[in-house]
């Protein structure tokens, strides 16, 4: 059981901290020029952070307690391939989810 005061400290602290992270550049830097080297790095923010967030969950999924799992691996591969091929986010999600449910049903 989570202690109520701990929970509220976490909710409020995490809320304030997250807002400050989001406001940091947008609010405080404003329209002042950002140095080119920083911009060059920021161009790769999304393509670096999002895969780093997703791939460990593909390799060690929470649902299996961290054991690598063929349906999830294959579904992830299908999602990436369809995404690369169609450049369509929803098509990639639908194909990935379809693959996952199909394989879980077949193998489960």
């Amino acid at each position: 059981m989570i202690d109520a005061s701990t929970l509220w400290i976490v909710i409020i602290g995490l809320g304030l901290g997250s807002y400050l992270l989001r406001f940091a550049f947008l609010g405080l830097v404003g329209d002042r020029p950002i140095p080119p080297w920083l911009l060059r790095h920021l161009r790769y923010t999304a393509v670096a952070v999002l895969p780093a967030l997703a791939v460990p969950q593909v390799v060690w999924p929470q649902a299996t307690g961290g054991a690598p799992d063929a349906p999830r691996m294959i579904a992830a591969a299908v999602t990436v391939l369809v995404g690369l091929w169609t450049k369509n986010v929803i098509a990639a999600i639908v194909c990935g989810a379809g693959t996952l449910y199909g394989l879980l049903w077949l193998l489960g």
Partner: protein
Amino acid sequence: MPSTTAKTLTPRRAFWKGFRDGTPFVLVVGPFAVLFGVLAAEAGLNVLEILVFSVVVIAGAAQFTALQLMTEDAPTVIVLASALAVNLRMAMYSASLTPWIGAAPLWQRAIAAYFVLDQSYACSIVQFEKAPDMSIPARVAYFAGAVCPVVPVWYGATVAGALIGTQIPESWALDFALPITFLAMIAPMLRTPAHVIAALVAVVVSLLAAGVPYSLGLIIAGISGMMAGARAELWADARRAAA
């Protein structure tokens, strides 16, 4: 009069374009929010606590991190530090959006900051790079449009999940909504070899750094990927200049 192409998107049309581009994310934000509600209810939180959690923090991955650590009785400082580390990417998104909407009025940026999410960021950065001639108000309107369908679903589906509680069978494999969403979002973004290198380096480092405590592996991997991408871009530019 010259024709009205994407170049002259009015704020109103930009808003609706953002709305259309953001709407598909409902399909993935919904299940993700339901899952948070379900897991939080299982951890003993009540509906109000779960809703406030989602409204105040509005960041799924960080919420899951915090929830996980709290159920493990981790020290509060560790819970906060880890969840904020997961959210460091929001500062990166904020910085990445700044060249595009940093010239908007402060009150608009202050509101927009709250709505910097994986989805709104992903949509907007693609649109801004594709149509660099959009005016500042049109960009802000596009961003607002992309947020509008997603956020009510985030709040509402959280409550739905909280109410459903522990009744969802594990066979639904909702856990995989997040990785699939992120992978689907990434693939169309891999436009140049430098983007591919950034993603590959980030993936390798994230796997190697999986044992690093407090989710800091994610930050290390993200920064490594960004540095690799920037290096690759410089290298490609130099080769092009030499050719």
